[in-house]
């Protein structure tokens, strides 16, 4: 029997067919497993497969649906999970040598919720070592490759998740984001990537040391905005096991999809997002603004007076928070880190305590400034990354050449690949990256849509309106 063609499928198109029993969850799961077996050796998106468990879950889904026990739009839908999120009985390495053999005996809350919704967990996705970087060049497990051009990075740290979704190796993936680790690879791989408000999705089950406590968020990868709303509906909510999760009521994120954005106001922050931006990204972003304007939205400039302090506030928060979880390994297995990460962790040990506290105070100031901005606009939009995906060689040498000049990929303020995303980790604001164009080399370009705390409904409304009026999301990467 010819297997199901899964490339280009979306949750929105598959879920109704599963509900009507026109697609079998078992056939669907088998088709994804077959495609992974064929494509994954080219892309290195998955680190570990859970084939037996996935097929058992698919058979159960099929039985339940046959008995009239359809659980909703994630029932029978194949997912992948970033390898720093605990999955019972499946290795969870965090992309590290240190945890190479760790098999959790519990599921993260988000995994529990997905399983309860009937989702099928196919396997665990590759990532930057300990989620501490955005190029995902991983010396222990190999580098995941961008499906649009395999000489290029897919971004990170949730690289495997973005590659898997973009290349049709699952329908959705769960990642984590403490500096842009969902939005950055979503942008470079041309998928939807949502980092919801801080605390919106429980972080219980995230591997300690893979993200600062107060800047880390669990996030969602899908191919469509609507698909992402399905997943957030199932995964959001307060969790007793995560004291930093929020008890704000969970909306139905489908409600605003397809509703008009006419008359809504968009804020554009000048200055910060102009740093180093390459002309192709600038043009794609400007065109996206024109599209939003044509939909009846009004564009105005907003000012965040202390936004230039974001890199310092981010680093001053993340380094001490993440370091606190590495102390035991630094004392016992320091040479099981890659050299670059080891050096930065040691440097992090010398961050003075007043830096941490002052960073938290500056963060409140910046939150107040965004709060003020959201009194006059409903969303803020910005490019997700200053450039399309660099090559692996460019990452290794530390710079790209664009617009006739050399642009370094990092400076003392950190990594340029996360410069545009960290303002929304420092503030915890909900932020979605969607594809807003392609470079002349055929590489995706991303745009961030940001709203006030817990207004994911507005993020979905605007992102869906943009997606519905453009065709970027219909393209598929060339990998077959």
């Amino acid at each position, binding site marked *: 029997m010819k297997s199901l063609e899964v490339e280009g499928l979306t949750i929105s198109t598959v879920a109704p067919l599963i509900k009507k029993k026109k697609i079998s969850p078992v056939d669907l799961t088998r088709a994804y497993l077959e495609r992974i077996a064929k494509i994954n050796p080219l892309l290195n998106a998955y680190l570990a497969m859970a084939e037996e468990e996935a097929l058992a879950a698919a058979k159960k889904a099929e039985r339940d649906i046959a008995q009239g026990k359809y659980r909703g739009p994630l029932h029978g839908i194949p997912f992948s999970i970033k390898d720093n999120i605990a999955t019972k009985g499946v290795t969870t390495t965090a992309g590290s040598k240190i945890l190479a053999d760790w098999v959790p005996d519990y599921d993260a809350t988000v995994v529990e919720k997905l399983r309860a919704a009937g989702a099928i967990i196919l396997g665990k996705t590759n990532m930057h070592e300990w989620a501490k970087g955005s190029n995902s060049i991983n010396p222990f497990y190999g580098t995941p490759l961008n499906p649009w051009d395999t000489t290029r990075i897919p971004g990170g740290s949730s690289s495997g998740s973005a590659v898997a979704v973009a290349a049709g190796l699952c329908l959705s993936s769960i990642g984590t984001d403490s500096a842009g680790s969902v939005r950055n690879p979503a942008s470079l791989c041309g998928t939807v990537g949502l980092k919801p408000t801080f605390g919106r999705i429980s972080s219980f089950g995230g591997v300690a040391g893979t993200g600062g406590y107060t800047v880390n968020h669990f996030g969602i990868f899908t191919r469509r905005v609507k698909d992402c709303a399905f997943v957030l509906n199932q995964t959001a909510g307060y969790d007793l096991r995560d004291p930093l999760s929020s008890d*704000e009521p969970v909306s139905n994120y489908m409600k605003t999809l397809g509703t008009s954005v006419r008359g809504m106001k968009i804020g554009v922050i000048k200055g910060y997002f102009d740093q180093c931006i390459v002309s192709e990204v600038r043009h794609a972003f400007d065109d996206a603004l024109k599209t939003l304007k044509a939909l009846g939205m009004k564009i105005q400039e907003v000012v965040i007076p202390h936004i230039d302090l974001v890199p310092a506030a981010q*680093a001053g928060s993340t*380094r001490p928070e993440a370091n606190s979880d590495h102390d035991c390994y630094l004392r016992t297995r320091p040479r099981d880190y890659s050299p670059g990460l080891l050096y930065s962790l040691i*440097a992090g040990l010398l961050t003075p305590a007043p*830096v941490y506290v002052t960073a938290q105070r*500056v963060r409140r100031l910046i939150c*107040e400034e965004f709060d003020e901005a959201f009194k006059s606009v409903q969303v803020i939009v910005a490019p997700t990354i200053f450039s399309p995906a660099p090559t692996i060689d460019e990452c290794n040498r530390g710079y790209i050449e664009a617009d006739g000049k050399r642009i370094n990929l990092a400076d*003392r303020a950190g990594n340029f690949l996360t410069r545009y995303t960290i303002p929304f980790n420092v503030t915890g604001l909900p932020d979605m990256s969607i594809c807003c164009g392609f470079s002349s080399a055929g590489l995706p370009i991303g745009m961030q849509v940001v709203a006030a705390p817990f207004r994911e409904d507005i993020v979905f409304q605007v992102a869906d309106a943009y997606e519905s009026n453009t065709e970027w999301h219909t393209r598929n990467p060339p990998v077959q």
Partner: protein
Amino acid sequence: MKDAVRRLNDEYKFNLTDKEIDIVAQQVEEAALLFQPLFEVDLSGVSPLTKVDKKVIKSVAKKDTK
């Protein structure tokens, strides 16, 4: 700064080479420059951020605290 790195090296038994100590010390010096502007902001009346709320709780107005 190199002395601070060397003390850590002894305490944690990293066995860093001199070249590695230089690399780490340079990173610490760069970080200090990055963090310096945080201390130049007037933060009187601004408390640390601990959790994101739907409505940002305004800090006490600075003019009231001076």
